[in-house]
């Protein structure tokens, strides 16, 4: 139960009576009066147990976009319900109006919109709805928490989407598929067609020309139906916050952009998230929109405070694709974690696949190493230099083994990774 401000006012009014007739009798009488009034009100209030709740929540919403959870309250009792309810969304769901007033006559239902503005990616929950039902006097209320679980899946924002059109255009230019009069820069033979003025004379196919007695040129296109395997590291190193964003979220952005680009380039994209086990998996064979499947798979991912197990990577890649593939590992260039985990299994991967290691670089280290006004700052600069040197050493080692390394700031990582993909595709290394 709960009481209202009215009851407190009524009690405060009692002090006048106590002032006029001081004594235990007045106090007792007024107390009895208050209790009786509250009791009558409680008895006359609609029972919260007679309510049935129904919730409609949009299945998923992109981060930074608003959503509305609709709560339908049906009063199955005959007494009218007056009072308020609170929808128990967790704070990061950003409910703007979780507490609302309700007034439902008996045997009727009302709908309420709870506006949500999610502040975090992942699955956001509301376990219950608490209803407070006041009696006709508005003095006391019956309160009950009714279970009504709901989940809103908040998808990653995919800010890197803005890079997609320009990268796709570059991919189409490779294809020779543009209005520009130029040979496609691909490497795979596509077809023969008649020579038109302006074509590169080097691409004339003399044998076909001799057969046709007409000048014929070869056209080229980039390779198609190659396999791209994206591996996202969700271990402890991905929990680090760089420029106000966890490394994991930046990795998700980069993975999404590359996946969309590769599927635009007619390649087949598989996605795996792993730490000590496979935590999410999206297969190229699956049905439905790839982007939707990807964002739904990565939405509930969180960084785990455990060490990544890179030894499961070759097996996981093998299970996805037995052909030569582009394996993109989105992880951290952290000397300790990589030297013990990735380096031993890298030769095995490199023997069969093209491997790209992508990592987010911390721009703060650059700032730290430039500040040298006090002794403490110089020591900090030295420590930052040490961290940068370690990273450089690890990436040099990875490059010397034959892997490609992309080490960029959070804003730059997704487009740079996409550029690397286009470069690899243009040079026919996929």
């Amino acid at each position, binding site marked *: 139960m709960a009481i209202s401000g009215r009851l407190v006012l009524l009690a405060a009014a009692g002090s006048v009576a106590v002032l006029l007739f001081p004594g235990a009798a007045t106090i007792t009488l007024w*107390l009895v009066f208050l209790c009786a009034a509250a009791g009558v009100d409680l008895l006359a209030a609609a029972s919260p147990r007679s309510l049935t709740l129904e919730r409609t929540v949009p299945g998923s919403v992109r981060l930074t976009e608003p959503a509305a959870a609709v709560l339908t309250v049906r009063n199955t009792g005959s007494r009218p319900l007056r009072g308020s309810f609170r929808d128990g969304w967790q704070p990061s769901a950003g409910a703007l109006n979780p507490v609302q007033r309700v007034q439902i006559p008996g045997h009727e239902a009302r709908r309420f919109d709870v506006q949500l503005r999610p502040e975090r990616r992942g699955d956001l929950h509301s376990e219950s709805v608490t209803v407070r039902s006041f009696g006709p006097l508005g003095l006391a209320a019956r309160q009950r928490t009714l279970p009504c679980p709901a989940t809103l899946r908040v998808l990653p924002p995919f800010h890197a989407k803005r890079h997609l059109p320009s990268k796709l255009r570059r991919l189409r230019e490779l294809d020779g598929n543009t209005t520009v009069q130029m040979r496609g820069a691909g490497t795979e033979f596509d077809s023969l067609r008649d020579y038109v003025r302006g074509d590169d004379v080097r691409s004339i196919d003399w044998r076909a020309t001799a057969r046709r007695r007409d000048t014929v040129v070869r056209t080229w296109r980039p390779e198609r139906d190659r396999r791209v395997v994206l591996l996202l590291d969700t271990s402890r190193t991905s929990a680090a916050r760089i420029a106000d964003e966890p490394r994991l979220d930046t990795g998700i952005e980069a993975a999404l952009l590359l996946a969309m680009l590769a599927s635009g380039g007619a390649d087949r994209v598989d996605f795996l998230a792993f730490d000590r086990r496979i935590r999410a998996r999206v297969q190229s064979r699956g049905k439905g929109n790839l982007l939707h499947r990807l964002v739904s798979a990565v939405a509930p991912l969180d960084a785990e405070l455990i060490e990544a197990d890179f030894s499961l990577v070759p097996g996981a890649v093998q299970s996805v694709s037995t052909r030569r593939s582009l394996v993109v590992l989105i992880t951290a260039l952290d000397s300790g974690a990589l030297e013990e985990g990735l380096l031993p299994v890298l030769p095995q991967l490199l023997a069969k696949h093209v491997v790209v290691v992508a990592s987010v670089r911390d721009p703060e280290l650059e700032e730290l190493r430039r500040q040298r006004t006090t002794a403490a700052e110089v020591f900090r600069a030295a*420590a930052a230099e040490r961290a940068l040197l370690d990273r450089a050493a690890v990436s040099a080692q990875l490059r010397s083994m034959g892997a490609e390394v992309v080490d960029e700031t959070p804003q730059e990582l997704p487009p740079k990774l996409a550029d690397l993909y286009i470069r690899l595709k243009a040079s026919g290394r996929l």
Partner: protein
Amino acid sequence: MSPAHAGADPAAGPQRGPALRENVRTKLRAWRLWIILALVLCLVVLLAVLGQSGDDDAALSPANPAPAGAMAAATILGEHGVDVQAPDSYQEALAILEDRGGQSTLFLYDPNGFLGADQLAELNGLARRQVLAEPGFAQLTELAREIRSAGVLPEQDAGLEAECSAADPSAARSIDAGGLAYRGPVTCFPASDRGNGPGSYAANDDGSVIVLGNSGLLANESLAGRGNAALALRTLGSTQTLVWFLPTASDIPQAEAPADFRTLLPPWVDPLLLWLLVVAALAMLWRGRRLGPLAAEPLPVVVRSAETAEGRARLYQNARATDRAVQTLRAAALTRLAVRLRLGPGSSTDTVVRAAAAAAGRPKGEVEELLTGALPAGDAAFVQWSQDLQVLEEEVTAS
């Protein structure tokens, strides 16, 4: 649930046991806070009750075994046949003294001055011997007219010598110094540097009034020291009965007690205060009742990426590892210069130094000193050196 019971009610039997237990557990969890509060309250009340039944802790109380108590002296006196009476109130003390008909010893210790002048005057002359411990002016006036207060005796390690002819002090020979000093017809244990000045023990001529300046003599912790016990026991144990009277606040005469200010207030104040308390409690209930349980937020781990670098910096600084810091800064600068001057990763330090000197337009020796020279000594030199290194890099980059 027993198998027999389950057999008797086969439909409900299998689930009812666990469901019931689950239900009880849920209820218990919901009421957990109140149960814990009730237990704590019980514990507090229990402790308070137990604490009250404990021994009294007044200083020099004959029933107090603590260091400041005087149980030891009272027990020894009891063992030697003295009937030690410890009255709880002034009335009781008066009754005992009158009952013994002037054949007893009165020991009075009232450092707070609870007894009024009239009460003290009434006590005077009822006992054969009156022993006052550290009496104030009022007590001296009423009970020991010939003895005057004479300041404070400093505590000192040496102790005080009797230096008088009275029987009890000379038997004790020496006692602990401290407490107050008094001057009377018979004065013993004078402060050593003042010769015949005021002392720690004063009595009138026939020894019927004795003032002990140092009440610590009787305390359990110091009774065994020097002649303390001899003086105390001889002073208090001269009669069959000893009335050990420690006045308390309840002995303050009624007329002297301050008037209760509440009797000055109008009659409605008390009920109104009580009622306002009720209103306040209701207001707390009104504002304090939460609309539903708190929603839990599973917070993600947040680690700043540069945290490790800063931790390493603090390690460098705490260990004063200037050499290591210098090496790291040099290695980083050389690497960047080599890249900037397009020298390739395998080039030697000397090559880089020469190329950097040429690019920056500086003498080679200066650049060499910066990049490979001696370690800078002291913090100021260290900071200066690192800034110079940065300037060199900028010059090369700008060229």
